[in-house]
């Protein structure tokens, strides 16, 4: 492949794959069965130049490949407030990746749209929440890939044998014990993004192991936890004993390694994390942002239940408060079929697909204070968008949007 016998696009892709393998001291390359590409989000000319070079060279993916969010909602293009040139480039970038043969899924949660590699399967996934979900919840194996390598792995079907591809790197290295937390806290929605935030802060680049989480912890809560840990730290994998597939027991999660120090998480730690992620100090609210990572079908069901007993009896959101829900077009179609989106639209809310509200200008420029139930959104939005954030659970977000004031229970 490196020498051009499979075409110049594969040769270029292989130079990138082997360049990374050399840098990371990989013993060899391994075959991957799928890829998830994050390079389709527009960050400037360089990313577009790279994708268009691969297109010009005739590149085509050789393993099933899904696409992460782009910078535009292609179904609702009027939502973007980006300037015309950025919109044009962002569109060209998205087009280049579909020309390369990747599926136009446009979601950071491909695992909610049927892309679910199995236990032990080697894949090349990019985007920090998708990576941590694939490794932790699915038990698939991907290193923490980034832009450029994702599409190069898709074009070559190869990735360096490094990091979380290797069993040794998947062993738990830090224990977060939540067994002292009362049941009310363990069953509260916000506990999960807050635990993730703490894990990222505490464990850094390590593999945290959670002990004491309820056995019925939902996939959405694991999604929230993992995405938060991958934002506040470089966490690419976590274990939850009794829940995630490589952690039937604590000793299995640790893989026979020495037991690391155990941090007993207290309610005060969660309160500190919530304070850290809440940057607004007033009760004003301009917008609510839900769906980072992308909203799932069960999350749409929860939201619809909070909005109304029936769609004819919806309380409208207060004047001046915008409510956005980011999701994939596939989940949106399912939610519409179930009648879950009508109450949101009747209340004055907006669904965003193909992209996300924290990576591209969608909120009004005068937006100052935003409520979100996502620790990831709360972590990145202040720098990306120049807004202040209040972290709140889904019910608090809905009540606050209806009343036009921050209302925390």
């Amino acid at each position: 492949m490196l020498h051009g016998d499979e075409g110049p696009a594969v040769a270029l892709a292989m130079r990138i794959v082997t360049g990374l393998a050399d840098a990371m001291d990989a013993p060899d390359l391994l075959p991957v069965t799928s890829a998830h590409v994050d390079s389709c989000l527009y960050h400037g000319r360089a990313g577009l130049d790279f994708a268009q070079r691969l297109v010009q060279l005739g590149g085509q993916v050789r393993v099933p490949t899904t696409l992460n969010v782009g910078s535009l909602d292609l179904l609702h293009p009027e939502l973007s407030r980006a300037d015309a040139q950025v919109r044009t480039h962002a569109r060209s970038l998205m087009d280049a990746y579909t020309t390369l043969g990747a599926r136009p899924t446009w979601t950071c949660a491909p695992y909610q749209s049927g892309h679910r590699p199995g236990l032990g399967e080697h894949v090349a996934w990019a985007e920090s929440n998708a990576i941590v979900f694939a490794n932790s919840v699915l038990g698939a194996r991907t290193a923490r890939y980034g832009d450029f390598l994702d599409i190069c792995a898709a074009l070559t079907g190869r990735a360096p044998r490094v990091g979380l591809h290797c069993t040794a790197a998947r062993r738990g290295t830090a224990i977060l014990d939540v067994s002292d937390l009362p049941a009310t806290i363990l069953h509260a929605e916000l506990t999960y993004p807050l635990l993730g935030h703490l894990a990222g802060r505490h464990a850094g680049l390590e593999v945290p192991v959670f002990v004491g989480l309820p056995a019925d912890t939902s996939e959405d809560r694991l999604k929230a936890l993992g995405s938060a840990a991958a934002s506040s730290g470089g966490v690419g994998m976590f274990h939850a004993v009794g829940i995630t597939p490589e952690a039937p027991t604590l000793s299995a999660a640790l893989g026979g390694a020495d037991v690391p120090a155990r941090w007993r998480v207290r309610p005060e730690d969660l309160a500190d994390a919530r304070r850290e992620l809440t940057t607004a100090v007033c009760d004003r609210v301009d917008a609510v942002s839900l769906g980072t990572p992308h909203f799932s079908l069960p999350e749409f069901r929860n939201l619809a239940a909070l909005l109304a007993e029936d769609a004819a009896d919806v309380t409208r959101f207060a004047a001046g408060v915008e409510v956005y829900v980011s999701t994939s077009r596939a989940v949106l179609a399912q939610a519409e079929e179930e009648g879950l989106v009508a109450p949101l639209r009747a209340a004055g809310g907006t669904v965003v697909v193909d992209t996300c509200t924290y990576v591209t200008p969608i909120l009004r420029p005068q937006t100052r204070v935003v409520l979100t139930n996502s620790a990831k959104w709360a972590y990145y939005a202040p720098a990306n968008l120049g807004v202040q954030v209040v972290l709140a659970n889904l019910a608090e977000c809905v009540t606050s949007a209806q009343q036009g004031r921050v209302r925390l229970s």
Partner: protein
Amino acid sequence: MTSEPAASATQSRTLHPGQAHGPLLVLEAPLSLWGGMDPTTGRITDEHHPQYGAELAGRVVVLPSGRGSSSSSSVLAEAIRGGTAPAGLLLAEPDPILVLGALAAAELYGLAVPVVQLDPASYTSYTRLHDGVWLTVRAEAWTVHLRG
């Protein structure tokens, strides 16, 4: 100016080849370029970072590691294209995300920004130097020469 670190730099490793000459900047904490650096200005925009506002453009940046989003590769490549990137990156830990940004920029634009993994002794030495000291980095496929 001190040349002490150069003597112990031989255990350091090239992650991406290139040459750099510029003033030193030692980052006190890992940095995610995505959400943490504006590629149009070359400044740190992460409010959580202790050196919020510092200029990375043209500096030989010593940092413990990258962090966070995998989109940082694109931000680095874009900064290299636009001339706002660090002149070179000296890391304590190998960082695939930064290496990929350097690899892509080299393929597309022929601009080679050196990325080096310092051995622990060199890393410690460099973090003790004063910001603004001029450094020369020559990172070849197998060897690293650092002069301060």
